[in-house]
């Protein structure tokens, strides 16, 4: 990488950014590389020791003064939970928290500011298809807006018959629907174009998450205000410090777009756009404008900064693709995955996630020999369109080196390509390739000692 430093300072900035990502991931995952994150193992040992001390002395269990993981409350751990009463009912204030023994968290890229930054979902610990709201990935361009719903409004104007201003209460009176869907940042995996870079599945794939979203079909709202002839685009604008804007084709808005105010059964989280966000099923995350405050109907796209200088895909020939919205079929094995260590030969259930912005996953194949042979994995039902789909594959590891891969097929017949196939078409314009929309087959290499590492294997 020395060669890059001879280039301009911009190139240095890019290199620093990649180095910072690698470093941030290293700090997060520093430890012994077993299947249980080191931080959690350490905690378990510590708590067990504390409990043992309390029990051996025959005294009341001692309060453990270690700091609880984010989202947990530190509780006294009795030597034998059958011999004393547990935590009083309602002691959590009426809003529950997770176990103090579970420590997985989103981790933030070490970007220059904490306002324009992103965090990634710890997919290696994920179970099923739902991402807990507190672990849903984030991408902010001007920090997390703090908004009082009593003062927030959504205006709909431009090429409409009747411009409208809606309060949050108005929005919640509209007929509503709920859909369980993934949202994926189109930059997910941007470090992996030219070589394996980040070590864990959180780093390579953690910019995708699934929630149940509840809200108003945007098409219904547009019908309410009435569209003028010639309307073709809708600008969506957020109420954050970036005043984020994207132009959305009207057809998508009328088809399945949602103004979401609910997430996983409660109000949408602040970092997901409270009190409301746009959800565009299957389209790149950046278009799902958070803290939504304005929709302007127009005959042309607005050519905003986010849809010109960013979120466009630069090809090797110097042209860039604009308005590449859909997230194509993709999958990744979450167990076993990078930085884990299999304790020895024997049975393992390979599991992971597959998703497609074009509909349902219809097939998921797993290879344990780097793509020479493939076999169908079991898909957990129900398989929902435009949603994380859990797959499972029983595997007997014989202790020899292996390369694990997964390959998704969706209901359009599209088959997840290799990274090489993508690069052959789009080129490799710099270390981050064309940055966005990397959906190639991912490889995890298993060494004879059971260690799992990120690999490129085509």
């Amino acid at each position: 990488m020395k060669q890059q430093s001879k280039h301009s300072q911009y190139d240095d900035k890019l290199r620093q950014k990649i180095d910072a990502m690698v470093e941030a991931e290293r700090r997060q995952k520093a430890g012994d590389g077993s299947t249980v994150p080191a931080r959690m193992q350490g905690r378990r040992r510590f708590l067990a020791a504390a409990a043992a001390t309390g029990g051996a002395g025959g005294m009341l269990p001692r309060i453990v003064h270690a700091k609880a993981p984010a989202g947990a409350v530190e509780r006294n751990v009795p030597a034998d939970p059958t011999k004393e009463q547990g935590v009083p009912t309602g002691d959590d204030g009426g809003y529950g928290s997770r176990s103090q023994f579970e420590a997985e968290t989103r981790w933030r890229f070490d970007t220059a500011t904490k306002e324009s930054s992103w965090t990634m979902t710890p997919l290696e610990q994920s179970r099923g298809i739902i991402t807990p709201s507190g672990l849903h990935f984030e991408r902010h361009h001007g920090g997390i807006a703090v908004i009082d719903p009593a003062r927030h409004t959504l205006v709909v104007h431009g090429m409409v018959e009747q411009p409208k201003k809606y309060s949050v209460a108005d929005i919640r009176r509209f007929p509503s629907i709920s859909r369980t869907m993934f949202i994926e940042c189109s930059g997910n995996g941007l470090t992996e174009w030219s070589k394996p870079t980040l070590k864990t599945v959180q780093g390579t794939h953690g910019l995708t998450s699934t929630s149940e979203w509840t809200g108003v079909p945007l098409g219904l709202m547009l019908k309410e205000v009435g569209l003028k002839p010639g309307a073709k685009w809708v600008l969506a604008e957020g109420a954050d410090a970036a005043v984020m804007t994207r132009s959305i084709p009207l057809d998508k808005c009328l088809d399945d777009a949602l103004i979401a105010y609910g997430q996983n059964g409660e109000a949408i989280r602040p970092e997901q756009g409270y009190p409301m966000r746009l959800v565009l099923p299957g389209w790149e995350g950046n278009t799902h404008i958070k803290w939504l405050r304005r929709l302007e109907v127009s005959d042309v796209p607005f050519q905003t900064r986010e849809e010109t200088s960013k979120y466009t895909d630069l090809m090797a020939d110097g042209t860039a693709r604009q308005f590449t919205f859909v997230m194509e079929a993709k999958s990744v094995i979450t167990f076993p995955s990078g930085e884990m260590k299999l304790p020895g030969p024997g049975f393992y259930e390979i599991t992971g996630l597959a998703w497609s912005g074009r509909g349902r996953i219809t097939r998921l194949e797993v290879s344990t020999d780097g793509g020479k042979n493939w076999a169908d994995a079991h898909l957990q039902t129900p398989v929902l369109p435009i949603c994380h789909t859990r797959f499972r594959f029983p595997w007997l590891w014989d202790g020899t080196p292996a390369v694990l891969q997964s390959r998704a097929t969706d209901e359009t017949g599209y088959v997840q390509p290799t990274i090489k196939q993508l690069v052959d078409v789009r080129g490799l314009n710099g270390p981050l390739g064309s940055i966005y929309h990397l959906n190639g087959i991912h490889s995890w290499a298993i060494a004879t000692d059971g260690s799992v590492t990120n690999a490129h294997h085509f």
Partner: protein
Amino acid sequence: MPITSRGMTWLGLSACAVIGAVGCAPQQPRNVPGAAYSGAKLNLGTTPSASDMSGYFSYPADGRGLPPGSGTYSAGEKVYQAKCLACHGDKLQGTKLGDRLIGGRGTLVNNNPAKPPAKTIESYWPYATTIFDYVKRAMPFNAPGSLKDDEVYAVIAYILGKANVIGKTEVINAKTLPEVKMPNRDGFTSHDPRPDVRSAD
């Protein structure tokens, strides 16, 4: 929930009343889910006032709606030094905090994984109107939305002058800004060609 049920009944009646008023026959019986809002206006929300809309803007490439005012290279240099230089550097070269703004022409055609392209305003941005829209809404980072329209026009004149996209004596305003031909104006394709990879199987 009783509140929801009562609300839907009320909407159902309301919908029928509206349909009746415009002389249409009700299309669905009232006890069918969805009947309450099929075809009838919900009449939620209010009409936004001029003051409601006064803080909102967005300027497409043809420049419609751009505000009055203007700016020059020399005025923009002062704005840049006071408000932009700390993050974007004294030569507009970018820093750890802010993107590089100029240079980079000729770096977009590239198939070298070791050599990143320099995607700057000068080399990459297709429309000058985008600069106005973005700077006005989101810059400077520590005080977003704080620049006056004259300051935004001026800082654009400065950046584009430094980039040799316009001359240093040109005035940037609502009329001239959309007329600026950016170097990469024709560098974008807006028809998504994907799926662009077919399985070898």
